[in-house]
């Protein structure tokens, strides 16, 4: 397309400026126009280029409308940033190489009509004001000034439109000409909320519906999940018992194009990953949601206390060292056909007709205390929530185990206390008042054989019932056989 002479002016000092119109011309169009002016006997109107002056421009290679043009403006001819927006399909160098505007062309699937933005040196190019229409885009960007490349000539093109999977591409523009940014955008079926459902804060995203606040804490933590203890570099927590599908959307919002959230002190729209050494997850920087499971990005720990009870296993983590960590398979054991006043004891079978009571762990605690200190961490398939413990063969319940500390003992430690007393962990150890009992939940580690003992020598005595049953990945259950002891 031939340049309309009235669109631009060229001052006597060589300043080529956009003065009218909005048409975007190719770099080759600019060269052709300048060369045409350069053959004029005298300057015309406000375009101070003629044969009397020096050559205004030079093209690398021959004119070819099918390929990008690398143009050098010569002898003082120069454009400014605003004028650069009037050209594409090539690059423009000026000031004896001190300044360079390089073209970027986005290619890939799903780009038509999708919003693109460009980040350079940690800021949106042109302060976020875009002169290009929706994608795919083709425009020039200044990548060198005062003789120095800006950010080594690297420009990042992003497409992070709400409702669509994200994509970005780091473009090395240092060589000039036109460089390609390969993007891939598609609708994100996991986005169901409207963009206005969220507000951003410092490391937070607040969801209106359902109500909840997702908070990001940046900092190294060491956490254990399913017996796998690993280091993580950040923690995601939330309120409102939000489902992971909601948490995912809030996190996508936090880093979408118009996010107002700041993440670790930087604008959310430029967040890519927790650590430079990690791989990008372009579609979803905090992790992808697939098949109802949240595959959390590397380095992020999820605060398990924030989890909705329906999502206890609907996620997977990747620790700082790159190890996939899955939540444990939580199981329980249960017994049925019981009657009130039955005493039921379920524990691991020792393989020789009794309970496996040898754990190699001892417990120490003061009299009247409800806290016991273990000599070592219990096995992975011991309930860390509410459960049962035998200390020196005395039955107690507890409310939780953290590390080597057993808390909430009931009854409290008897007089004399415990000093390196042998401990083991039955799954059920109580006199029931119901027709069935279930253990507290515990992590599945491996199949094992459990032993159950049900006794009732009271008003409705039964022959003591004792048997073994398998505990597998789905847990285990047994029904007592009640033979009257008459």
């Amino acid at each position, binding site marked *: 397309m031939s340049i309309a002479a009235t669109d631009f002016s060229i001052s006597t000092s060589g300043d080529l400026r956009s003065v009218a119109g909005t048409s975007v011309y190719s770099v080759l169009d600019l060269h052709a126009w300048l060369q045409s002016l*350069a053959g004029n006997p005298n300057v015309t109107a406000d375009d101070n280029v003629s044969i009397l002056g020096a050559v205004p421009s030079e093209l690398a290679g021959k004119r070819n409308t099918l390929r990008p043009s690398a143009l050098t403006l010569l002898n003082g001819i120069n454009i400014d940033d605003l004028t650069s927006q009037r050209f594409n399909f090539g690059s423009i160098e000026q000031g004896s190489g001190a300044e360079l505007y390089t073209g970027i062309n986005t290619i890939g699937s799903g780009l038509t009509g999708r919003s693109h933005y460009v980040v350079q040196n940690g800021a949106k190019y042109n302060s976020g004001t875009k002169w290009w229409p929706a994608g795919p885009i083709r425009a020039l960007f200044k990548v060198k000034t005062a003789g120095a490349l800006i950010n080594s000539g690297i420009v990042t093109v992003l497409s992070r439109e709400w409702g669509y999977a994200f994509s970005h591409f780091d473009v090395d523009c240092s060589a000039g000409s036109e460089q390609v940014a390969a993007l891939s955008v598609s609708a994100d079926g996991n986005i169901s909320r409207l963009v206005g459902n969220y507000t951003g804060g410092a490391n937070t995203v607040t969801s209106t519906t359902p109500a909840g606040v997702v908070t990001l804490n940046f900092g190294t933590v060491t956490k254990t999940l399913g017996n796998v203890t690993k280091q993580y570099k950040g923690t995601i927590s939330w309120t409102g018992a939000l489902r992971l599908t909601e948490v995912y959307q809030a996190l996508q919002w936090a880093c979408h194009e118009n996010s107002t959230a700041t993440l670790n002190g930087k604008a959310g729209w430029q967040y890519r990953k927790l650590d430079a050494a990690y791989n990008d997850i372009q579609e979803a920087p905090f992790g992808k949601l697939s098949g109802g499971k949240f595959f959390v990005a590397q380095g992020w720990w999820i605060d398990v206390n924030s989890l909705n009870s329906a999502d206890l296993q609907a996620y997977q983590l990747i620790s700082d060292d790159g190890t996939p960590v899955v939540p444990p398979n939580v199981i329980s054991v249960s017994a049925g056909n019981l009657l009130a006043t039955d005493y039921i004891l379920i524990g691991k079978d020792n393989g020789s007709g009794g309970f496996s009571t040898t754990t190699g762990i001892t417990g120490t605690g003061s009299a009247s205390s409800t806290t016991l200190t273990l000599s070592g961490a219990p096995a992975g398939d011991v309930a860390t929530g509410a459960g049962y413990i035998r200390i020196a063969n005395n039955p107690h319940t507890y409310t939780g185990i953290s590390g080597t500390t057993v808390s909430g003992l009931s009854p409290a430690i008897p007089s004399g206390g415990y000093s390196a007393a042998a401990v083991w962990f039955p799954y059920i150890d109580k006199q029931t008042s119901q027709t069935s009992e279930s253990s507290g939940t515990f992590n599945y580690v491996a199949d094992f054989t459990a032993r159950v003992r049900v006794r009732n020598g009271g008003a409705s005595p039964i022959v003591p019932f004792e048997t073994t049953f398998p505990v597998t990945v789905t847990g285990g259950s047994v029904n007592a056989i009640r033979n009257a002891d008459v």
Partner: protein
Amino acid sequence: MANAVFAPMNSSYANALSVPSTRGPFTVGGGVAVSNGRLPTDSIGNFALTLTNLVVGSAISVEAYSTGQQLFFGIAASATQLINLGVYQSGDPKNDLRIKIRQGSTAPYYKPYETRQMATIGSASLYIEQQLD
């Protein structure tokens, strides 16, 4: 500045001869003015510059190299173009010529071509090898 006026002494010269004051001093022979003198800036001869192998339609500009003063401008109507120029006293910037050939307005386009030539009394021929842009 007013022109100098020579007043004829011979009655046969009925009219006064007006001579521009920018001319050099003139000589007088037997009371009759017979010639005009030259200024140092006047040409001392002619230089016939022939450009060959021109792309028809190219713009041609011949300028003084150091001052940019345009001495000739034209459009090549044929592959050969004769340009008559003056030759000046030694040291005159108009003897050192910059020759510009440009063809960027209509296809096929050519890169700007530029060369340099000293003007001397007589003639010279330059073979112009423009390259496609």
